[in-house]
């Protein structure tokens, strides 16, 4: 979707404000709790990481831009909990809930390290031959999906070159919507800065994205 999250090339957000390397990982206690809540609830397996991203980017733009990053996470998590029926809207509003036994998939403390070590690999075997080879010229399709996609707006319609073939990977556009992993071949596609930004491009600039096969067409 053309949501507030799709920031590449947007203007007006000001200076970067780098913070030093010794700055704390979390700037407030609630940030740490927000991260941990998101990971623990994710371990229940009721939705995919792609669906989590879609919940965050579906926040209204004014909310998204007004929130710090972990606040975006928490708002996305709240939406998913209600959507999937783990918490009712009334429980969320009132905070009144009955004590319940541990969910069978609740992540226990001693399972945290193995779960983090396992991660969630997204590579999948594919039977089909690659449509593109390294060196091929391709155009990023002009698409404006209402649902989740990982093809950023700033490359749509531009011509680039296939640089690498990474084999099959879970397709976020379906996986975010409960429509299955539908793996597709993933490529690194590199663009000359001028193909994206025209005469406004900085000199000597190349930019790459990782793009699923259906995002691309021969050029």
């Amino acid at each position: 979707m053309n949501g507030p999250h799709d920031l590449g090339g947007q203007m007006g957000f000001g200076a970067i404000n780098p913070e030093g390397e010794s700055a704390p990982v979390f700037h407030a206690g609630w940030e740490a709790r927000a991260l941990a809540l998101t990971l623990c609830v994710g371990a229940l397996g009721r939705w995919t990481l792609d669906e989590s991203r879609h919940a965050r980017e579906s926040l209204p733009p004014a909310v998204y831009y007004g929130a710090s990053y972990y606040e975006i996470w928490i708002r996305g998590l709240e939406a998913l909990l209600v959507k999937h029926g783990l918490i009712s809207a009334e429980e969320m509003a009132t905070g009144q809930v009955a004590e319940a036994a541990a969910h069978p998939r609740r992540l226990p403390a001693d399972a945290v390290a193995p779960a983090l070590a396992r991660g969630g690999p997204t590579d999948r075997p594919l039977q089909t031959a690659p449509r593109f080879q390294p060196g091929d010229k391709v155009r990023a399709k002009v698409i404006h999906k209402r649902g989740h996609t990982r093809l950023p707006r700033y490359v749509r319609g531009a011509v680039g070159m296939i640089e690498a073939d990474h084999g099959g990977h879970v397709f976020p556009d379906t996986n975010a919507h409960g429509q299955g992993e539908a793996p597709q071949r993933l490529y690194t596609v590199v663009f000359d800065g001028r193909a994206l930004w025209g005469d406004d491009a900085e000199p000597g600039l190349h930019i790459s994205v990782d793009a699923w096969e259906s995002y691309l067409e021969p050029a």
Partner: protein
Amino acid sequence: MPHDHSEHDNHLDPIDARVRALETILTRKGLVDPAAMDRIIQTYSEDVGPKNGAQVVARAWSEPGFADWLAQDATAAIGSMGFSGRQGEHMQAVFNTDAVHNLVVCTLCSCYPWPVLGLPPTWYKSPAYRSRAVYEPRAVLAEFGVTLREGQNVRVWDSTAELRYLVIPQRPAGSEGLSQAELAGLVTRDSMIGAGLAQVPS
């Protein structure tokens, strides 16, 4: 969430109160174990961070065979040092050279190689960095105090899928003869994102 300035006000930030309320609900409903949350927080506060990535870089600088492995199969090479798992399932190492300086961003969210760098700094997740890194990376680098050498091109890697990128900065002049541990001390977090350079030994 309303912020009630009564004399019983505990002065919680609205967002702090919101997260506490959600944790209470989820804990009472048996969906979350607070001890597991503590374990996650401890992992990313104390155990996993850019010191891991610095060891990878120092080894790549010291052992050409390891650098080759890193270039060919970064997931395996980094995994052999014990750094693997969530948000590092599919790694790619990109090497800075005299010709090209690499910079990593995630314009769509905040994708970042957790096993080698830990959790991303605030600026990496900010709209300012995410919007500008692909459009005007030299201007962005200047705000980090980085000036590239004449003729050095810039390559920006937008992490739009599940590949996670680790920049291998150039080995600084004057670092000959240092041990791997000493070399690792020169490798900053920002240099492994491409927003900085490795430190020159004093």
